[in-house]
């Protein structure tokens, strides 16, 4: 399935946001997920099914002032 993650197309076989995060090995990090413009709380990741062409943003904290 093609997903648009952080602006790039990724072809992967996953079913939920939880699996997307796991695919990139980000479970331990303080990552926030947004799907089609809506923030998905961490406890909802496993219940959020991904669909073809879904736009997903995975963001985290970096240094800044």
């Amino acid at each position, binding site marked *: 399935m093609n997903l648009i993650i952080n602006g790039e197309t990724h072809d992967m076989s996953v079913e939920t946001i939880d699996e997307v995060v796991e695919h*990139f090995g980000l479970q331990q990090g*303080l990552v926030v997920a947004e799907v089609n413009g809506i923030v998905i709380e961490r406890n909802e990741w496993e219940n959020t099914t991904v669909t073809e062409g879904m736009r997903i943003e995975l963001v985290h*904290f970096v240094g*800044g002032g």
Partner: protein
Amino acid sequence: MQKNLVIAGHELKSRLFLGTGRYPNPYIQNKAIEASETEVLTFAIRRVNLQDPHEDSILQHVGGRYFQFLPNTSGAKNAEEAIRIARLAKASGISDWIKVEISKNEKTLLPDPIETLKATEVLAKEGFVVLPYISDDPVICKKLEEAGAAAVMPGGSPIGTGLGILNPYNISLIVEELNVPVIVDAGLGSAADVTQAMELGADGVLLNTAIAKAKDPIAMAHSIKHAIQAGRLSYLAGRIPKKKYATASSPISSGI
């Protein structure tokens, strides 16, 4: 005589807010944070680099002390983008504080006051503790307070310039007219600038580049900590008025 700073019911022993960008390395950053005795750290929100997902997430470097985290909305060019970043930051679960920072002009990075006001209104209503970074204009600062800002953060001069406080008159007016805390953010370059901000009556300062890019960031962090204390005490002590001509400090009568 010295009371602690309180923002949205949260008491802070230190009046320094410290940014986490541009340090030479994480070790020096941590040592500088420690030396500064700050309790509030700012961060930015960015996309995870999926080619290298394990590259620095800044929080993994910040040691075990307790901090109030103040994520910023840097990169936002309008209210809508800032609100989106604020919601993402809050969903991390680490903080409901947000520094609203909206700039369109990449050369000056000066804040867009109209978009900042819009974002502050929306986010304050949503329950965020909103600290907007804004121009040193007393009118817009007051409007931000009325819109629900928990503190207002006028810039001394553009971000990263180290030009200090370009309009001390405005900063003192802002301090006089606002009831919420005033944190001078951006442009401060040294201990002298920080002392001036505090002498003008600011409740605190937010620094990043001045410490991160100093030749010795750890020593500068020490210096800034003392500058805040010196400036605050001087403000509370009440300075003498400025006069054009001399007044002798030694008695003028009974000279030999």
